[in-house]
């Protein structure tokens, strides 16, 4: 890795950290559980690293490790987004709850 790439990576890290702090501190405690499962799903993006490892045929060990990693990350992506959706569907406004009951 050349120094420029490393510096650029640190820029991305620092800006993402700052932006993440700003965005996430606005999430109300009401939604902290969905927040956790959503960030879990999002960090399932390690899938992109796993996919390359599983498909590149570097060597058998890498391919096997990559396959397991793809499986684990996919569990998080699919499971994380799905369960977040399931949870968020349940958060209803007072008017909507009343309407349903009648």
């Amino acid at each position, binding site marked *: 890795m050349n120094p420029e790439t490393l510096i650029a990576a640190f820029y991305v890290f620092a800006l993402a950290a700052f932006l993440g702090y700003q965005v996430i501190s606005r999430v*109300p405690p009401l939604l902290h559980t969905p927040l956790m499962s959503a960030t879990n799903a*999002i960090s399932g*993006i390690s899938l992109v690293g796993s996919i390359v490892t599983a498909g590149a045929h570097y060597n058998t060990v890498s391919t096997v490790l990559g396959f397991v990693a793809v499986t684990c990350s996919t569990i998080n992506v699919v499971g994380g987004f*799905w369960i977040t959706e399931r949870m968020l569907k349940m958060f209803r406004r007072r008017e909507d709850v009343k309407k349903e009951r009648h």
Partner: protein
Amino acid sequence: MEHAATAVSFKYYFVEFTYLLAGILFIMGLKGLSHPDTARRGMHYAEIGMLMAIIGTLLHRDIVSYEWIIAGLILGGAIGGAISYWVPMTALPQRTALSHAFGAFAAALVGISEYYREGAALGEIKVTALAFEVLLGSLTTTGSLIAFAKLQGLVPGAPMTFKGQNFFNMALLAATVGCFIYLLVTPAAAVAFYIMLGLAFLFGVMLVMPIGAADMPVVMSLLNSYAGLAAAATGFAISNNVLIIAGTLDGFSGFILSVLMCKAMNRSITNVLFGAFGSATDGGGTQAGGEMREVNLEDVATQMAYARQVVFVPGYGMATAQAQHVVRELADVLDERGVTVKYAIHPVAGRMPGHMNVLLAEANVPYSSLYELEQINPDFPNTDVAVVIGANDVVNPDARDNPKSPIAGMPILEVDHAKAVIVLKRGKGKGFSGLENPLFFKENCGMLYGDAKDSLTRLVHAVQQA
């Protein structure tokens, strides 16, 4: 020849573009979570972002065959789908712990594979990033598995301690860090790499074992943070910006939640990790005198039926008794009689951040009826009946009144300011932390013993007849 080169670079730009788009969509997705009305749309953005990134990656120039990728995607999709489809909302903390483990394990595996393949040829910078990735990934994997086992009841939830534990853990940490540093100086030392890997797995176990179930909200947030940082380190190791962005967002989210949870218990992270809370440190608690007053169910029903305002205070006990639906039924009956019903949610009630909110939302409680600590505390003096359902420490007035209490300074829901308090409790024993709760001995407090769900069901009928 010329033509082929342009084709490759076009593909390269396209892949990078999908990553950039994914990064932006992830941030927009999290921004949506600032309000329940925009949250679902936000998640759809994030899902599209993920899809783009995956499509982009499938075009990556290093990939020569797809069978293992497709197998992994199908298997993972099936397992992930099955878990999310069938998991009950009360088991959310376990599921989340498990997904921290999966995420961290994936990061660790990619790191191991990279080191196995290239070794010292990676250069110092990449080896540093890889070492971070593998260290965080592996300790989070085993730590999360232990957290899962505790939450699922496979191992006892109480802190597991032994003599010299903190010393042992410190030595273990020192050895792990030692390997880490040695590896940075000598990137070719594969032995150091694999020893570090093993030690980190062990350290994860040792880190979570001594932590009691009541401290799980902090631990869950912390593991969330580590899993994210492991993914970010992967991004550094394989020079992938979207991994850095997503991992950092996850890492910071977990970090912010850890800080909030610690504040809500007035404890430091070090204290949670190394304090083995509630093990044998008793002595500071009040030996509250007097009698606990047992009340009869019909009286409670009458009291509630003719109240102006009733506040429910749920705790982990509501989750274990699966009582959230009955609570809402009772609230409906009261609402029909013109009683104002509110719910008071303590940040650390339950086993993970926001646990109670999700359970009540599942039972169709509108989110505008859920109040945070700062909002509801000034309202307790206007409350006729506060009903505590399976919560203990979060309503313990000792935290406010007794500076010697182990939970001194922890912000509490001040239910003792309500005109009457009814505590639904299984039996006369102490709560999870083993602390005496002086609330139970106050004059305005009545105890209703028995299974919470059962008591609440009977209360629904009694209020209807009142």
